[in-house]
């Protein structure tokens, strides 16, 4: 019912672990695979190890979290070891490496060093709490996005390239089109929103050490759905939908809007890693009860109504 083959990946269900959630260590990703994820996206990494920002980096707020981890990650050498350790799960649970950098060369270098151990790359050009030159500094700009994607595509021939976009732009479809034109094999929509700010009401002090942080969780779902819906009408490549998916009803909204695959992140905070099994179960039931034969039948359905 939920099987699909996309980007050469044979998937038992469309629910991937989203980048940035768990995903640092092989053992945490295996744990999520055991919990029923259809695939894994690693936490973003680059050439060098990066401690990220000081705490507080992630705080629970109404409707989700606000987060400025700042791309904390071990460097590519250490990450390669974690990725190797994931080989045992890849036949059943494909692994996508989320990578970041501040230049075409860095992206290609990181990808080249790890391409034997992954099923696809997700280029993080959209982190809203990256330092200058990284993350959304790229993804806010269609030309920069195009250049990075083209360059990685030129260098990495045999592994699909997914581009994760930021919603924090005036028109996300412009960036989506730039990424598609540059050869992206798929897009992930959306990275975290804002960034946002929370201030302690007693002391007037911004709560996050980095002051601002990306907003994730159920509250960003309507924004993510808008981005998926609009981008679905703009590009022809498959879309990963991500942003606030917590129940099968949320998953349905994203599929109807045009996402072929889904990613789950923050809601693990509410539901535990078993969220993957739960949504898979509920989604299968819904499709069966409503007479669908395969999840593909409902992808983009909202666009085809009278």
């Amino acid at each position, binding site marked *: 019912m939920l099987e699909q083959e996309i980007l050469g990946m044979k998937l038992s269900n469309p629910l991937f672990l989203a980048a940035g959630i768990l995903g640092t260590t092989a053992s945490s990703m295996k744990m999520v695979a055991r919990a029923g994820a259809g695939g894994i996206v690693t936490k973003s990494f680059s050439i060098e190890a990066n*401690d990220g920002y000081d705490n*507080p980096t992630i705080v629970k707020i109404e409707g989700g979290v606000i*987060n400025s981890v700042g791309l904390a990650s071990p460097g590519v050498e250490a990450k390669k070891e974690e990725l190797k350790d994931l080989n045992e799960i890849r036949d059943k649970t494909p692994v996508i490496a989320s990578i970041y950098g501040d230049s075409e060369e860095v992206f290609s270098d990181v990808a080249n060093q790890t391409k034997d151990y992954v099923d696809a790359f997700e280029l993080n050009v959209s982190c809203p709490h990256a330092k200058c030159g990284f993350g959304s500094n790229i993804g806010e700009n269609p030309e920069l996005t195009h250049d990075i994607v083209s360059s990685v595509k030129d260098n990495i021939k045999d592994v699909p390239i997914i581009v994760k976009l930021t919603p924090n732009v005036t028109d996300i479809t412009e960036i989506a089109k730039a990424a598609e034109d540059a050869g992206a094999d798929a897009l992930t929509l959306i990275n975290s929103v804002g960034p946002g700010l929370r201030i302690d009401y007693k002391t007037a002090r911004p709560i996050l*050490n980095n002051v601002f942080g990306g907003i994730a969780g159920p509250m960003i779902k309507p924004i993510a759905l808008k981005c998926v819906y609009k981008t679905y009408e703009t590009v022809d490549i498959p879309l990963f939908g991500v942003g606030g998916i917590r129940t099968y009803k949320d998953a349905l909204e994203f599929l109807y809007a045009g996402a072929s695959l889904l990613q789950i992140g923050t809601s693990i905070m509410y539901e535990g890693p078993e969220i993957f099994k739960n949504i898979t179960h509920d989604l299968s039931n819904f499709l069966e009860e409503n007479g669908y034969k395969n999840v593909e039948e409902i992808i983009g359905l909202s666009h085809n109504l009278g």
Partner: protein
Amino acid sequence: MIENVYDDEVPNVVEIKETIIETPTVKTFIFPWNITDDIHPGQFVMVWDLHNEKPMTISIIDRENNLMGITIRKAGPFTENMYDNMDVGDLIGIRGPYGHGYELDGYKKVLAVGGGSGIASLAPLTSFYDNVELISASSCADELVFNKRFDSDVVVHKCTDDGSCGFKGFSTQLAEELLQTGEYDVIVGCGPEIMSYKLYELSIKYDVDCQLALDRYMKCGLGICGQCCIDDTGLRVCVEGPVFNKNQLRELGEFGKYRRDASGSIVKY
């Protein structure tokens, strides 16, 4: 499924009501907190000094006066600043409690081993259970924590490396002596990981149960950043831990061997 999806859980800024200098390196901070029934020994809170934030085990759970306490040891800039500069009237932000504590129902007699400030995690057990005996260990008499805290009906075995107070030697040596009596059916502990690992080995040798609090670098405390996931099972110290039972510990390949730093890079013990 939990109910409070939409709760705001930013740090609750509270005023420090009392501080206790426990030793030249250890200090306790007491602050008002609504002590609900779900707060349990072994859990931790995220402590915000209005700049940085660190996980700290809860050392005082005072239901009667609605007070909570944490006990910190100078071990870096954060704890040094707290020890040296934070006092009554100062503000700290607290969020939590988080994590899974000790579960001692059904045991006959518990041996709880605290190394240094690790005793902070264990001390609240004495007001939740009446079958707990403590080992409080440190390098020397001056560094023994909570010397005056416990009621006379709580059995506390003191232990110092140099013998300046109580048993002379390591806490694990004293623990083994006590285990040899056969009186205890579970050993719990909190302290340096080398001590904890030795306690785990003792629990196997003497065939008793075991629950140990582990310490890992944490960012969120919410089970999502993945920073505190432990090999090989990927269990989250902030959710499934910080207290793990013997079955869990058996699967933790990194226990006693290495941890990960803020970047997620492996640091060997």
